[in-house]
């Protein structure tokens, strides 16, 4: 695009607004902005501030400046934090390397209209309709020591398979449960994307003698960039903000520590809210970092 064309574009976009337009616009921008600041940014900033204080959560006049003490305590003296971080990283790895690719694979197969694709589509999407909390309740009923699966195997609670209590396997049990829902979610997103890929592109690559895999890798996947970004961002966010399923199954105890439950455990209950705030800030930094980096990289290449 030449520079004159750009200028023309710019000029044509600038429009004169009437007074009524301006009032309407400022109301439509201003009111949501006000609530956004009030309900999102101010609490977020206060949380960051709180994480640098000592406060039991009661009587604001007793709040004391603590500097980095809460973070020092978390990083050096709270083994649960590192355990939680490890679990979140495994979660991310599992979602990124197994669940999300599986969702994409399913979407691709269903998009090819394999036999019974309508059935598969519905079957895989069904868990997404359920909230994470309900997912947790269902699987808890199934896998508890006195639950359905152990009952089916004729095991009583004294020799039941410990799906949630055995620390060698429980993370994979939880991840399987989480994937049960995540795969369908990714599948649907990707399916919507695939439908928008120009059929002629595929035909052309088929005529050129490309294999199915080559077509996907070289033609379909790159042409779905916007959906890919969404899928990656969702995978990261879902892995880091994981909370519901674990909370339903383990309660607010540290039975299975992940960052989400640590935030809750320290903010809810009787006191020590500042440590919960510090966990929330750590979680925030972890989530925002990779996402900003990724979006920047993507937009940069778009501009070029």
């Amino acid at each position: 695009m030449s520079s004159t064309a750009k200028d023309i574009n710019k000029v044509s976009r600038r429009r004169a607004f009437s007074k009524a337009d301006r009032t309407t616009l400022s109301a439509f921008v201003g009111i949501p902005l006000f609530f956004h600041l009030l309900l999102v940014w101010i609490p977020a900033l206060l949380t960051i501030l709180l994480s640098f204080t000592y406060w039991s959560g009661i009587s604001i006049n007793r709040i004391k400046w603590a500097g980095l003490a809460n973070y020092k305590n978390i990083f050096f003296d709270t083994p649960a934090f590192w355990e939680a971080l490890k679990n979140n990283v495994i979660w991310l790895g599992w979602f990124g390397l197994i669940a999300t690719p599986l969702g994409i694979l399913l979407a691709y197969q269903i998009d090819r209209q394999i036999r019974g694709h309508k059935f598969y589509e519905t079957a895989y999407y069904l868990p997404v309709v359920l909230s994470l909390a309900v997912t947790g309740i269902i699987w808890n009923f199934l896998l508890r020591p006195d639950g359905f699966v152990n009952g089916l195997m004729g095991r009583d609670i004294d020799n039941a398979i410990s799906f949630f209590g055995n620390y060698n396997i429980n993370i994979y049990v939880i991840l399987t449960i989480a994937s049960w829902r995540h795969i369908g979610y990714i599948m649907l997103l990707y399916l919507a994307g695939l439908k928008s890929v120009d059929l002629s592109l595929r035909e052309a690559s088929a005529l050129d003698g490309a294999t199915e895999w080559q077509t996907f890798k070289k033609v379909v996947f790159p042409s779905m960039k916007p959906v890919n970004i969404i899928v990656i961002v969702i995978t990261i966010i879902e892995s880091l903000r994981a909370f519901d399923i674990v909370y339903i199954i383990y309660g607010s105890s540290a039975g299975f520590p992940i960052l989400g439950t640590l935030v809750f455990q320290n903010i809810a209950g009787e006191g020590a809210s500042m440590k919960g705030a510090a966990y929330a800030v750590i979680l925030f930094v972890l989530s925002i970092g990779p996402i900003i980096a990724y979006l920047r990289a993507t937009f940069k290449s778009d501009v070029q």
Partner: protein
Amino acid sequence: MSDLNNGISRRSVLKGAAVGGLGLAAGGSLLAGCGSKATGPLAYGARSVDAGPTAQNEALIAAYTAKTKNEVKYNATESNAFQNNLSQYLQGTPDDTFEWMAGYRMQFFAEQGLLADLTGVWDSIGDQYSESYKIASTGLDGKQYFVPKSWYPWGLHFRKSMFQDLGLNADNVTNWDEYLKMLDGMKKKGLVGFAAGDKGGWEAMGTFDIINARVNGYQFHVDLLAGREKWTDAKVTDVFTHWAQLLPYMNPNVLDLEWDGAMQLLLQKKAGSMLMGSWFGGNFKEQSDADYADLSIIPFPEINPEHGRDTIDAPIDGWCVAANGTNNDGGADFLKFAGDMEGVNATLAAKDKDGKLIPMTSANSGQDTASYDPFQKEQLAVMAEAKYITQFLDRDTRPDFAGPVVGPAIQSWFKNPKDVAKIQDTLQKQWEALPPLA
């Protein structure tokens, strides 16, 4: 004539009605006067949605309303949710009176000015309670902020029929060696000796409490929980050393079971003994009267002869009045009734859905212990043997330490029992990192 008569009679009827109305009004105020001051409607916050406690509360509230004509609005919350939300609840628009626990957990909120002073209530009903209950109801400033309802002991529970079948005598299990020998015998018969669950993160605190009290004594235990002793002390290591000796006799899925899972092991006769608060007897009774009659309790065995069996966890449940409530007088008036023998009797008369009385050991000394069922009498005996009474770990130390720190620490010990030194170290460091209270 007839008209006149009619007129007179009509007038006199009206007059009579007016007098009657006055009389009724006077009677009403007299009635209210002799019951208590008219304190108006109030709200009651229950810390349970279970059938038993709900029936008790409804009976108590009905009796109170019948006596004072004060309407009581009943709000029930599931106990974990209630606890998690308590700070916010008390700082917002709480119910006037709410169910809570005695000891440190009450003092913590009293210190922050969130509980109303109940010294007046204690002035009128205090003589119905022994001194230990008054101490447990007293804040750090010497004023009372709590009215006790009931207590229960933590001890070793077992089934009489099982002991009979195994040829065991509970009277012979008085010290650690005898207890371990008994557990070993149970293990050889394919039974779980010591049923345990800690998925909830609080259940095993009771085991820590009792072993610490048995090994190191009452004073060390309370000093440790108040931060006057250090968690890195070799005495704490000793607690875990003893606890580890129980591990081979526990069910392998401790972290997969909550308290009720452990109870199921005992109920189904798959486990020989369980350390738990006797409150779960209500669940046995719900199962069947026979199961309840089979339930028995003994004190946790002696470990260190110096301390014998002199300490027991016996938590007291009861009520507080929220300072931020709209009707503090109403809340206090309600608790004056609830804590009085009249209210206690109303609570004790409550029946479950099958029409059976709900067992309760009241804190009020007016409850006739002769009316206790055999299991309650055993609880009383276990209690009577103890010289020192503690509440429970999560009621005897800072709430921001017990739940978020000690709970996970014990769970991580179950995951890796060899990590004792590391666990002690982080416990101490996290205690030191707590915000100063004042």
